[in-house]
């Protein structure tokens, strides 16, 4: 455990180091920051790895007069899986971020040491959240994580909408903290102390009402942070506003702490009732479908990726829902499949989503704009970013040689095996068409992004004179891409990583994962490798065949129209139009027509439809009360008299002595 804390210390030291070595020797500061941070991640990761490898959870109790009893930290298999994802992706984002900010610092716009310091604090806080074993440490680290990510989101605070998105984010996370506040308070009422073990011990003695309250509050609190549909409204604006390496970390890791929280509560409660499993499965399906639908409607590349995070959280929730159903209907096989699918998809999503965000960050750095309508033809000018992005895209839509497919395959199996049981859990099989629709729409959406942004010809000057970003930037991206491919080609790796936790979650002791999963894993690697082998074989024969015939270069055929302009290419909105028209108003596309122009923009159903109008109504109600304080002393005296009379009435007629 001390190794882990040493790792965290190194990460914080990296931030402080960057803060100290600022000013003229900023380049040295960057180097110190990167080296220290990577070493910190490796040491902390080693501790987590050891827990997974040896299967021996670590624990550390710090005694002292802290409020709410002494602090307990611990790493069990669940924390270890999340820790590995956090530290790996965190290091990659840090490296990308340093180079990204170096370019910004070169233009002298902003001192970067503060961003680096808060990035290091954020990383350390997330690691602490995952390792916390008492309420005070958990909520403390949770809020430090929320505050430091707020500070990072409003890095470009001179723009008005960045501040607005930052405020929406802060309000959402603070409401989440208050929900957790109430959850832990309800739970603590029955517990002896504020530590998680005491909570676990008190779980059986929680009354039915209290259990429902705890479960719902957990769903709201962690749901806000995870961002499934009704509570996702803060996620797209926050990710669009944040610098790209921060939104990569947030989308890949920070929203996963919500999933970690749900799993931790499930573990402590020892399984949830069936209704909760159905609710989570329902939320997963709705988040998945709506998330990808709204992603299709976006013009801004980072908002699109953010909505895809909502979709993938939906898939993860479907996995957890199936797992919870398995536990509540006492079917360990379903539970193990569901949890394995959900957990592995969390890790996979952390990898390919941060890869995609780093790609979009590189595009933003090179072209200065995020609007897909102004991009195009970047593959030729930024080949390595394009390679990383297309691998990420293939991974996210869940096709065989990549890691996204493995976790979706597990979720499918979980859904199908639930369908085979005789009880009412059979209805879970209806999740299969939903998941198929989600991956179909995801394929449509990422064909659109990859095609419109990187392929075809440059639509504006921004895109045409884009230059490839320096080497330091796309190395982390390619590392993540490599991780996606290896996990895709060797799924046994990923499944082995999560098997210990899955056994714990499903509460089946140390029986192995179901046999079809193990054999399936090796078969999938066979499918993946055969696809790659066959493709290379055909590519080589095609090359050999082609050399005999010269390949002529002509302008694109396009039915012999010889003056095509870049504006005639399919844009992001036209590409998505057929699909969005099918779903009608649900897709939230607002069309503005004037005599001369027609513009479409995507609106968020929950943010514009529910959250903001609700706030305006609360605001209006408050203003109506403003009349109380209109400045006349007489009325103030009357208020005091009224209060006195009320109390005297209470005295006279209130409870008899």
């Amino acid at each position: 455990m001390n190794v882990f804390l040493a790792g965290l210390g190194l990460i914080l030291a990296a931030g402080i180091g960057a803060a100290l070595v600022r000013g003229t020797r900023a380049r040295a500061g960057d180097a110190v920051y990167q080296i220290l941070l990577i070493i910190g991640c490796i040491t902390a990761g080693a501790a987590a790895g050891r827990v997974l490898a040896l299967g021996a959870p670590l624990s550390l109790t710090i005694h002292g007069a802290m409020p709410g009893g002494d602090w307990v930290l611990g790493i069990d298999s669940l924390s270890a899986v999340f820790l590995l994802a956090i530290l790996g992706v965190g290091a990659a984002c840090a490296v990308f971020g340093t180079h990204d900010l170096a370019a910004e610092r070169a233009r002298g716009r902003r001192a970067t040491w503060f961003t680096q310091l808060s990035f290091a604090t954020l990383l350390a806080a997330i690691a602490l959240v995952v390792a916390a074993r008492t309420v005070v440490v958990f909520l403390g680290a949770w809020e430090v994580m929320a505050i430091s990510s707020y500070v990072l989101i409003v890095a470009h605070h001179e723009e008005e909408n960045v501040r607005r998105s930052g405020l929406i984010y802060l309000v959402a996370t603070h409401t989440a903290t208050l929900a957790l506040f109430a959850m832990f308070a309800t739970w603590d009422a029955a517990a002896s102390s504020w530590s998680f073990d005491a909570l676990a011990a008190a779980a059986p003695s929680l009354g039915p009402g209290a259990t429902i309250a705890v479960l719902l509050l957990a769903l709201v609190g962690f749901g806000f942070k995870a961002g499934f549909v009704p509570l996702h409204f803060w996620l797209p604006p926050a990710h669009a506003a944040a610098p790209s390496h921060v939104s990569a970390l947030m989308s890949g890791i920070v929203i996963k702490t919500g999933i970690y929280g749900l799993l931790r509560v499930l573990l402590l409660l020892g399984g949830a009732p069936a209704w909760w499993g159905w609710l989570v499965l329902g939320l997963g399906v709705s988040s998945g479908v709506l998330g990808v639908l709204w992603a299709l409607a976006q013009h801004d590349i980072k908002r699109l990726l953010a909505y895809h995070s909502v979709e993938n959280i939906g898939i993860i929730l479907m996995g957890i829902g199936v797992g919870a159903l398995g536990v509540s209907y006492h079917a360990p096989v379903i539970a193990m499949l569901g949890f394995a699918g959900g957990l592995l998809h969390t890790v996979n999503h952390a990898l390919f989503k941060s890869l995609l965000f780093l790609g979009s960050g590189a595009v933003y750095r090179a072209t200065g704009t995020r609007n897909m309508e102004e991009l195009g033809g970047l593959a030729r000018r930024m080949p390595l970013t394009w390679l990383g992005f297309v691998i990420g895209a293939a991974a996210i839509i869940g096709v065989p040689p990549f890691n996204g497919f493995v976790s979706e395959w597990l979720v499918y199996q979980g859904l199908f095996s639930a369908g085979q049981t005789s009880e009412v859990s059979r209805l879970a099989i209806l999740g299969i068409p939903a998941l198929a629709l989600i991956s179909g729409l995801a394929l449509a959406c990422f064909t659109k992004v990859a095609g419109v942004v990187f392929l075809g010809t440059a639509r504006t000057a921004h895109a045409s004179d884009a230059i490839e970003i320096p080497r330091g930037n796309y190395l982390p991206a390619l590392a993540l891409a490599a991780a996606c491919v290896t996990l895709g080609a060797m799924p046994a790796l990923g499944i082995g990583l999560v098997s210990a936790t899955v056994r714990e979650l499903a509460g089946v002791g140390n029986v192995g994962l179901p046999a079809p999963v193990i054999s399936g894993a090796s078969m999938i690697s066979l499918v993946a490798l055969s696809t790659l082998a066959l493709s290379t074989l055909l590519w080589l024969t095609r090359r050999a065949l082609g050399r005999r015939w010269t390949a002529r270069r002509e302008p694109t055929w396009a039915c012999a129209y010889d003056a095509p302009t870049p504006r005639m290419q399919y844009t992001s909105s036209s590409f998505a139009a057929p699909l969005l028209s099918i779903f009608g108003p649900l897709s939230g596309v607002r069309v503005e027509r004037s005599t001369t122009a027609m513009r479409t923009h995507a609106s968020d159903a929950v943010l514009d439809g529910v959250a903001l109008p609700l706030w305006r109504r609360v605001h209006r109600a408050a203003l109506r009360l403003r009349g109380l304080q209109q400045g006349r002393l007489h009325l103030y005296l009357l208020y005091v008299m009224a209060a006195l009379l009320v109390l005297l009435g209470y005295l006279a007629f209130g409870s008899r002595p």
Partner: protein
Amino acid sequence: MVLLALIAIPALGAAVAYVLSAPRRSTLLIVIAAVHVALVARLWIVPGEQALTGWLADDPLGRVILTLVSVLFLAVAQYAIEYVRVGDPPGGRAFVTCMLGFLAAATLVALSHHFALLWIGLESTTLAVAPLIYQRHDRRSLEAVWKYLVLSSVAIAFALLGVFLLATAQPSGSTGGRPLVIDDMTLRATALDPAWLRAAFVFTLIGFGTKMGLAPMHSWKPDTYGEAPCLVGGLMSGALTSCAFLGLARVASICFAAGQADFIRPALIGFGIFSLVIATAFIIGQGDIKRLLAYSSVEHMGLLVLGLGLGGTGAYGAVLHALNNGLAKAMIFLAVGNVVLVTGTSASDEIRGLLRRMPASGILLVVGLFAVTGSPPFGMFISEFTIIGAAIGEHHPWIAAAVVGLLAIIFVGIAQMILEMVYAPPVQEVERSEERGRLVIAPAALAVVVLLLGIYLPRPLTDALSSAAIELGGRAP
């Protein structure tokens, strides 16, 4: 002996300061503040001292509030030295005198175990602070001080009536013990006449409630904090309201001892929730930062009274919350003071670009935002968490839900204003920050203390809080 010194030194200092010249006045102020803190520290080392035949005594509840007042006064004094020199109307001769007078009166309130003495102390704190509110000598501060004086005097009159009713509730002769002395009254609480005791509680609740600024008797607060200089606002919202809460807590402890718990708990909870609702309504869309902090003070007073009314760990949470709220409120008031000093206005939509113009105060404001709204790393989170835990523990889940909901809305209102002030770009670009170094030390120190309270509660403090909670009809967590 220490108790008398604690009151006499500031009182004498106040008289002497009136005749001294400006620089020596400031040094006198800071010296007395330091001596006061030292004496209070000595109280912590050897607790339980008595003076004036039991009229002045040191008990855990009083000691916690006294520590808050003393530490707060030291920070404000350090801030005042610079403010007196550089404030828009520089602090005159009466400024330091009134501050020291306030310290003496507040110490009297904290230490007195005789209700009438407590009343006199509270009345003198009101009168000591009145000239400080009128520091700017313009029409708005004149109106503010007038309303403050009239409302407070009426309230104090009711409190006096309450004290007299307490005296009538006490049986005369040997069975009743010394009249109006808290220790005797708690010992012989069952002998008190319930009808008079309840009437006394009603009037003291109105009297001390108005001094605390509970809704609906809070109308003087936004005007007073809005017009008074910020350090005075900090002093009042931190120390004065806590002394008023101490008075109410003393009366409540008598009532709890006399078995009137089921009469006073609904009243306290009712006032608590009502204050929270009113505070929420007025914080949203508030235009002035100082008035917003006033309503935030109303909110936290509501939480204190709610904690006291809930019982169980609520009493422990309430006393700890008084400590945290005092320090956090003073910290954010001093930070706002720096801003108002430089920008000249407290209207929030005219203040922009603090991160550029005054980075230190800007960051302190953001830290203050998270401290005042009870976010975890800070002390306020622990006390709010205890109070809400008590609400659930004492089977009032709906009250807990309502409180959490209102806190969420309040956070939005405060965050909306402060974050816009700090992060929006300044109207005209400014190259070097117009920050005054010395004015940042006090709020920064307070911020550190509030953060520490969230992470580490020293053993003596937790013992004092636990015994205070038991005294107030609750229990330690």
